[in-house]
């Protein structure tokens, strides 16, 4: 056994409550079926938070100390301890939306265990099954379903054990909060801890993949769930409020050093020469690490690394061709450029990218009224509140990465491939950090830390600075839209032609060893770029003739560019829905219709629906939002007031996957300053079964405000050499003063059979941002009579639009 000092105590200390007769290490090592790595089991929760560093045994010498837990084993998912408490192990992360609390509610409910008797470990690649980490709003919709089935299976097994112990058939037993008792003789009881505490289940599960994991047991009808549906306070909040939580940024390891990147000052610039003498006098300087155009400095202390990165004299050669147009010329560039392709190949067939229903050209030619409009949506950043960071420890030839990256599993495999290490020698420990909302530079920082740690041979902490984060983090792609719609004599939409251009040529995936920034700067390229290209807005309007086409445009600089694109909360949804749902409003105006009535009319024209009842549930949320707002039917815009403040209301709706959302924004527009204030939002939200209503509301509240921020403030600006948005002034965000006075959230269950025992839960992390921008823009139109078609609706654009309209 060798000892290494690597694990923060709070992750290690968690072993203590139940090491009386066994430990998780022994527990799984001796199973004969599988070896679940080594080391401590991290409890997430304030009661076990430690401080400082611990040390622990890493077990026998092994070339592969960090294998993957096997999802087909019950013991990989949960452990019942001798005191009757349980620890759950799930392959998800929690950015602060209560995912962990919700998992505990769901799993305790199926297990018949008190919520307080559970703890949860998330996103530790050597200890939790690979559920992919977070993303796609799928934690509750998909991954918690597997976890729920596993918990139900554990309960089944425990009931059988109880039956044997008490000598009574299982159907004669009842169970509550981990205590099994005989129905007719309450004096006869046995606890889960008595039955299995500290021992393995040794029960195999089935499933072709982790999402299909199941045992023999059935899950309960949702009506029998007691914890699901309760607003249980989040377990992670107290430690975030009292300062005791250890975040990924807080981990300090013996011998740890600090690194900072030196980014190219111009996009596409090449390193010509590095003058290391320029920083020679900085105390604590260890190394300048340089490969290709990747440059970093490593110092003993953090402030030394900051200074060295600022002071290092690097001579860069600018690229021969301007890497991209300026942000002022962006949209004309997108419209004028030749798109990469108008077709796509599936198998041996090449088909047009355009999706056509009916005969839109003929329908437009025959329409009574034609409406045409262009919409623009800029690049936007994730701009996490804390810039990207990662800590990598290369001790003993292994690699441990401490990160808040929401996808620790792909970080593990990506780093292993990048460093040419067996994945079994790499593990990733997810810890709390700034919320990410998609593919952020957290991926990049994890790779950089691992690369530098391997180079230096000591634990290396990489911390991006604010200017790097804002300029170089992956961006949500910019779109230019051209829309054309036709109305018949009754004012119904008979044709809709949607054409989008998107700057999303080399969409960066998660933790890919050939697209992370360090790889790109080193000259590594994927075999082929992965163009994005989202479908149009997600709605259920019955429009008989449609054409929908999204074409990808590339800039001269495709790789190692600060305008690299990646997933940003509800990828492409805010952009496409800003255009789509604003345009539906324009059609309603042209039809002389109330915007709510117009939308409902086009949803009700068909009674086709799908398995998730998207049509019925779309109608339900629009009706619920209108009712909660007190919507009175009238035409938009309303007559413009004469005061300084103009007020208006607007609605928009969308679905994201199987969740439906309708939102009404009430705005005040200051005609002297151009400031738009969203004073009130009503959000009607149907995500099916709700696990924790307060967690849901918190998530939606934040998401709605994120939507306002992206609609009114956020825009990445750049000239033809570099991104010029580098801080909170040049990539602004919504602030306290901009917060609405009222946010009303109506949780809708529009399922045609709302009391069905298998009511599913649908994703809720992202959908409510989708229609927000259009609701705000429609409200601004209602207030001012001017249609604003370029996001964000910044004051200078509002003033210019009002001045144009007033001629």
């Amino acid at each position, binding site marked *: 056994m060798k000892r290494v000092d690597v694990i923060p105590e709070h992750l290690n200390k968690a072993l203590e409550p139940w090491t009386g007769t066994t430990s998780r290490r022994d527990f799984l090592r001796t199973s004969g079926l599988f070896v679940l790595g080594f080391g401590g089991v991290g409890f997430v929760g304030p009661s076990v938070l430690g401080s400082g560093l611990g040390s622990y045994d890493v077990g026998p010498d092994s070339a592969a100390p960090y294998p993957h837990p096997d999802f087909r084993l019950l013991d990989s998912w949960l452990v019942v301890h001798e005191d009757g408490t349980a620890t759950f192990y799930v392959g998800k992360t929690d950015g602060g939306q209560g995912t962990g609390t919700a998992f505990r509610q769901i799993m305790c409910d199926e297990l018949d265990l008190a919520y307080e008797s559970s703890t949860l470990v998330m996103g530790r690649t050597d200890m939790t099954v690979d559920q992919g980490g977070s993303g796609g709003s799928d934690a509750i919709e998909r991954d918690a379903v597997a976890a729920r089935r596993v918990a139900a299976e554990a309960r089944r097994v425990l009931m059988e054990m109880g039956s044997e112990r008490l000598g009574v058939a299982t159907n004669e037993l009842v169970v509550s909060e981990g205590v099994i008792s005989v129905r007719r003789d309450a004096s006869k009881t046995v606890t889960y801890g008595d039955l299995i505490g500290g021992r393995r289940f040794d029960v195999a599960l089935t499933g072709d993949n982790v999402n299909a994991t199941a045992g023999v047991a059935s899950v309960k009808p949702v009506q029998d769930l007691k914890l699901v549906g309760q607003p249980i306070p989040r377990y992670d909040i107290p430690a975030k409020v009292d300062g005791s939580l250890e975040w990924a940024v807080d981990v300090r390891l013996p011998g740890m050093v600090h690194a900072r990147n030196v980014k190219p000052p111009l996009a596409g610039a090449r390193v010509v020469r590095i003058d290391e003498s320029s920083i020679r006098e900085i105390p604590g300087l260890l190394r300048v690490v340089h490969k290709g155009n990747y440059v970093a400095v490593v110092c003993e202390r953090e402030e030394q690394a900051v200074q060295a990165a600022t002071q290092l004299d690097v001579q860069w050669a600018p690229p021969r061709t301007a890497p991209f147009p300026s942000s002022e010329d962006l949209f004309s560039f997108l419209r004028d450029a030749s798109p990469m392709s108008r077709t796509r190949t599936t198998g041996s067939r090449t088909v047009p990218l355009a999706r056509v229903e009916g005969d839109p050209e003929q329908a437009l030619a025959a329409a009574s009224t034609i409406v045409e409009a262009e919409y623009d949506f800029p690049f936007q950043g994730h701009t996490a509140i804390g810039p990207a960071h990662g800590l990598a420890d290369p001790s003993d030839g292994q690699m441990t990465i401490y990160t808040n990256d929401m996808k620790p599993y792909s970080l593990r495999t990506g780093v292993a491939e990048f460093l040419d290490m067996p994945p079994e020698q790499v593990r990733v420990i997810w810890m709390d950090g700034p919320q990410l909302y998609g593919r952020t530079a957290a991926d990049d920082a994890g790779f950089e830390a691992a690369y530098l740690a391997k180079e230096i041979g000591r634990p290396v902490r990489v911390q991006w600075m604010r200017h790097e984060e804002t300029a170089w983090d992956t961006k949500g792609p910019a779109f230019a839209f051209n829309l054309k719609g036709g109305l018949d004599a009754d004012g119904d939409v008979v044709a809709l032609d949607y054409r989008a251009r998107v700057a999303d040529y080399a969409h960066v995936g998660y933790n890919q060893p050939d697209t992370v920034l360090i790889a790109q700067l080193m000259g590594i390229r994927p075999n082929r770029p992965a163009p994005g290209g989202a479908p149009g807005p997600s709605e259920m309007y019955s429009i008989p003739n449609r054409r929908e086409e999204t074409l990808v445009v590339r800039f001269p600089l495709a790789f190692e560019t600060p305008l690299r694109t990646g997933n940003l909360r509800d990828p492409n949804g805010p952009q496409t829905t800003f255009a789509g749902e604003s345009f539906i409003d324009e059609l309603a105006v042209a039809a002389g219709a109330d915007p709510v009535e117009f939308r409902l009319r086009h949803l009700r024209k068909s009674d086709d629906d799908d398995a998730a009842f998207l049509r019925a549930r779309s109608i339900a949320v629009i009706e619920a939002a209108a009712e909660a707002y007190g919507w009175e039917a009238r035409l938009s815009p309303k007559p413009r007031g004469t005061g300084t403040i103009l007020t208006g209301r607007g609605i928009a709706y969308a679905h994201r996957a199987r969740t439906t959302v309708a939102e009404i924004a009430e705005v005040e527009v200051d005609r002297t300053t151009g400031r738009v204030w969203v004073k009130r939002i009503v959000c009607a939200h149907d995500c099916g079964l709700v696990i924790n209503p307060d967690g849901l509301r918190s998530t939606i509240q*934040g998401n709605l405000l994120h939507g306002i921020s992206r609609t009114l403030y956020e825009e990445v600006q750049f000239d033809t050499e570099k991104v010029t948005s580098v801080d909170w002034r040049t990539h602004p965000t919504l602030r306290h003063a901009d917060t609405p006075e009222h946010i009303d959230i109506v949780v809708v269950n529009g399922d045609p059979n709302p009391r069905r025992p298998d009511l599913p839960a649908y994703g809720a992390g992202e959908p409510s941002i989708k229609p927000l921008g259009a609701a705000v823009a429609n409200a601004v139109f209602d207030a001012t009579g001017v249609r604003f078609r370029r996001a964000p609706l910044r004051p200078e654009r509002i003033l210019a639009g009002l001045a144009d309209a007033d001629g």
Partner: protein
Amino acid sequence: MSEVTLKVNGETHTLDVDPTTPLLYVLRNDLGLRGPRFGCGLGQCGACTVLVDGTAVRSCTRSTSSVTGEITTLEGLAVNGELHPVQKAWIEEQVPQCGFCQNGQILTAKAMLDRNPNPTDAELRRGMNGVICRCMTYYRIHAAIRRAADSMASQDAPESGAEAGL
């Protein structure tokens, strides 16, 4: 390097650091504190906030040697293990999402309420406006500040309820 003395959360520390080092790095790396966090290094976001003699200060842009007052960090806000009313209100309103900025939100709110125990809505928004939250928990922060203000007012008030026959 030279000796710098800091008073933090009731303890005095003498440290051998470059006196121009931003206070934030010394609090985090030399004193092992977790409350103040690096958000921008530019004094723009507030994640690094500490209280210096009760005033909210951005520790990322202050050199260590320039701070001579009593420093209180998020860890030092509780008294004898009891959370400050602002912290209690934060938990009761379930304010944080990721929580990374909440250090600055809580300390700025505390300093604001110490100056102005009963802020109007406009004063509250103005007083908090420089502290950024990218989870956009502002709506709950406002509710928590109002709750904390009520709680602090009732704590400070003389025990008049019974006397007034309420």
